[in-house]
């Protein structure tokens, strides 16, 4: 029943805790157990010997019974203590095993994704050479299959880099740059990237951005990826009408939204739309099902929040909230989170 709070310093028969976290867990358990055992025991003794009777009841045979009972109680506590410690040890081990498995899985995904890239590079290089006529000009009908293959290779490329991103995010290995950036610039450049596609699909792409720059600290490329994913989805699922990117701010938060006039999302699907590999709506649309989970992870790595509002038949609205950086010139305050 020792309530040692500094386990590593005491050499004992106990195996040294594997890591500081396990050590802390064990010492907290020891304290809790001591409180649970010592206090009731002392209370009982007090009640028996002082309150209800007096020390005199312990003279003679009663004293022997009392001591015997005390010893049994203490033994029971000791055994119980060991049992619970053992259970905690097993749980810690199981947890470590799971964490390792998770790491291995992330490593495996990352390896496989890289292995995919080498053959993809040959595919893409050869197809581009073919399409550019480096092996002789392509006759009319020959261009179709080449373009088809190019599109599919592009799709595979995106899937592979999404998988890599996700495995890196889950392994905690994706680090965000800390650029000081103007959110309008990011949204404008995403808008430009999708202008062509919007026109091709007969959709109006609207940008409603405030004139005053909304500054924040974050990873420019990754934030761009977030809005590219949102915009790509919006354009993909919207048959006709428009897609709008809107930005507004209050004192601490910037809120960017991507709104479409598409078919909307059923209420049951809203829950799982940010989950990995979940794709709602028509399954014929291409996509890895990783765009939204990646977007969510990136936003959360910026201490932001992402959510969706939608009703079937009334379009969808994806909202991204990001903390605004402190005023320029406050050195060191850049690190400040939300």
């Amino acid at each position, binding site marked *: 029943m020792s309530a040692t709070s500094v386990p590593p310093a005491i050499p004992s028969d106990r195996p040294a805790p594997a890591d500081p976290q396990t050590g802390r867990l064990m010492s907290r358990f020891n304290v809790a157990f001591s409180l649970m055992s010592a206090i009731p025991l002392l209370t009982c003794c007090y009640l028996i010997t002082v309150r209800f009777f007096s020390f005199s009841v312990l003279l003679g045979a009663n004293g022997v019974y009392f001591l015997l009972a005390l010893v049994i109680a203490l033994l029971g506590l000791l055994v119980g203590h060991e049992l619970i410690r053992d259970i905690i040890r097993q749980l810690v081990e199981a947890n470590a095993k799971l964490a390792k498995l998770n790491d291995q899985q992330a490593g495996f995904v990352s390896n496989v994704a*890289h292995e995919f*890239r*080498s053959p*993809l*590079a*040959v*595919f*893409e*290089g*050869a197809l*581009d*050479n073919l399409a*550019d006529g*480096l*092996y002789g000009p392509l006759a009319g009908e020959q261009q179709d299959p080449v373009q088809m293959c190019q599109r599919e*290779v592009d799709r595979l*490329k995106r899937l592979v880099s999404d998988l*890599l991103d996700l495995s890196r995010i889950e392994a905690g290995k994706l680090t965000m740059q800390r650029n000081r950036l103007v959110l309008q610039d990011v949204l404008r450049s995403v808008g430009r990237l999708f202008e062509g596609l919007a026109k091709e699909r007969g959709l109006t792409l609207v940008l409603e951005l405030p004139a005053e720059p909304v500054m924040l600290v974050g990873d420019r490329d990754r934030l761009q990826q977030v809005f590219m994913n949102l915009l790509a989805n919006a354009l993909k699922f919207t048959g006709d009408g428009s897609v709008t990117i809107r930005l507004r701010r209050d004192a601490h938060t910037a809120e960017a939204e991507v709104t479409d006039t598409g078919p909307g999302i059923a209420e049951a699907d809203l829950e799982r739309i940010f989950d990995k590999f979940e794709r709602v709506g028509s399954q014929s649309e291409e996509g890895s099902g990783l765009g939204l989970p990646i977007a969510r992870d990136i936003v959360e790595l910026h201490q932001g929040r992402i959510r969706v509002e939608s009703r079937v038949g009334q379009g969808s609205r994806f909202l991204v909230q990001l903390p605004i950086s402190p005023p320029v010139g406050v050195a060191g305050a850049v690190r400040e989170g939300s």
Partner: protein
Amino acid sequence: MRTSETTTRQLVLLVDDEQSMLKVLERRLKSWGYRVLLADHGLEALRLAKQHHPDLMLLDVMMPQMDGLEVCRRLRAMKETRGIPVILVTVKATQLSPEEIRGSGALKVVGKPYESEELEEAVKAALA
């Protein structure tokens, strides 16, 4: 596509452990009018670099035995190859740390699969 002076065409050394990748790159670079040398492993790359002193190297990173970064180190260690510009073409483009890239002395890192336009830009900038 190119004018008469074939002898002055710039020489590019392509290094990749995959033959098919080499073939694809070779065709692409020839279409831009460069002369091309191929090496399918690090030691061969070093030997050719020393012997022919190319104007540019396109170097894969993940190769068995000697990886691209090691090839760079050895290039920089030899007087006659020290000045050869290198572009790394690798599937691990996003995973190379800034220190590794700086340490390799490479001009640029191009991700693999590469976009032809990006590669063209990088190659032309290096040989300008």
